[in-house]
């Protein structure tokens, strides 16, 4: 175990869960990251006449703390990725996962994203465009439709024993299974 080694789930999971009480005690805030996509849209300098009602509100009052929180996540990512990770090593995946990825043409397992698709050259390919732009659009659309993302529903919502959040998380998994087992083999191989 060196400073570059990844942390096991039983260390990292509780550390992520603790963000929920930290935010509640710090200011009564509920952990939910995708709300920032709405705050950022509301903050765009677009005239009110061209802005849907859903995006016309005082984003600074309700969302400034959250946008600053998310800037912090970016800083944490900067430090974690550039100083405390070895991105030259391939991800330690199971043998079945590795061979399934090979069938999809994904052979470079180094870093945090498959470089063949998640690069500027990759973005120019139909598959890369679908994964990056299609995936991005769907998380933005789906998170607001469902009223939360992994943090808002899977962590905050389930921790508060909310049944609607359980339905949403079941939806997240149904969508993910559909993409990995049906869309990927159709689109990537």
């Amino acid at each position: 175990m060196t400073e570059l080694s990844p942390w096991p789930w039983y260390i990292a999971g509780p550390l992520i869960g603790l963000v929920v009480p930290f935010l509640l005690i710090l200011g009564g805030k509920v952990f939910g990251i995708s709300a920032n996509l709405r705050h950022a849209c509301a903050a765009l300098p677009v005239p009110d006449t061209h802005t849907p009602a859903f995006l016309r509100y005082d984003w600074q009052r309700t969302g400034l703390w959250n946008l600053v929180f998310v800037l912090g996540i970016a800083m944490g990512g900067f430090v974690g990725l550039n100083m405390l990770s070895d991105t030259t090593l391939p991800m330690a995946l199971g043998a079945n996962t590795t061979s399934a990825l090979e069938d999809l043409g994904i052979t470079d397992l180094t870093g945090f994203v498959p470089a063949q698709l998640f690069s500027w050259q990759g973005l120019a390919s139909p598959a890369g465009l679908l994964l990056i732009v299609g995936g991005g659009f769907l998380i933005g659309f789906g998170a607001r439709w469902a009223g939360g993302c992994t943090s808002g529903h899977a962590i905050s919502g389930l921790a508060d024993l909310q049944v609607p959040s359980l339905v949403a998380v079941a939806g997240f998994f149904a969508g993910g299974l559909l993409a990995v087992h049906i869309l990927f083999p159709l689109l990537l191989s």
Partner: protein
Amino acid sequence: MSSVQPIESTPQVWVPNRPAHAPVECIDTTQAEQTRPGRRPSKDATPLALGLYALLGAYLGLVFTKSQVISWFRIYEMFRFESFHMFGLIGSAVATAAVSVWLIKTFNIKTVHGEPIRLSPKQWGRSSVPGARYWMGGLTFGLGWALLGACPGPLVALLGGGVSVLVAALIAALAGTWAYALLRDRLPH
């Protein structure tokens, strides 16, 4: 109470504790600001509070990176059920958050400002399809989660870490949010 009661009952004998040069209205103004919550400056917008939110975000971004939650490969592997890592991680995060929320509710723990902590329950929509927004929105989000291999928090951590092509994913996520805002009235909730 002892300092307030004499003012109300015998205002003529109350000697205000204020500098001689201060006009009488000053006291009224400060009192009004103290009693009317709407006039108080937001406690979340002070440099100290925002700094703490940024610090907490940086902590989370670091944990996201060190636990490989931000890895596209780990999300792919999770949807193939070929590693316990992500399930252990999300499970232990939810368990930690749930115990924390239970403790906060049971012991009526307040925020650092002494305010009560309220968690608003998620509402079932009024659609004829039960829970439509949660499972339809959830399904949409789940598709995007698997394609992009990142939910909104990890997306930001990867961007901070320098995976520059994900700027396209962030713009697409904002576009997805805006598209939802435009279509909101026509979608089942």
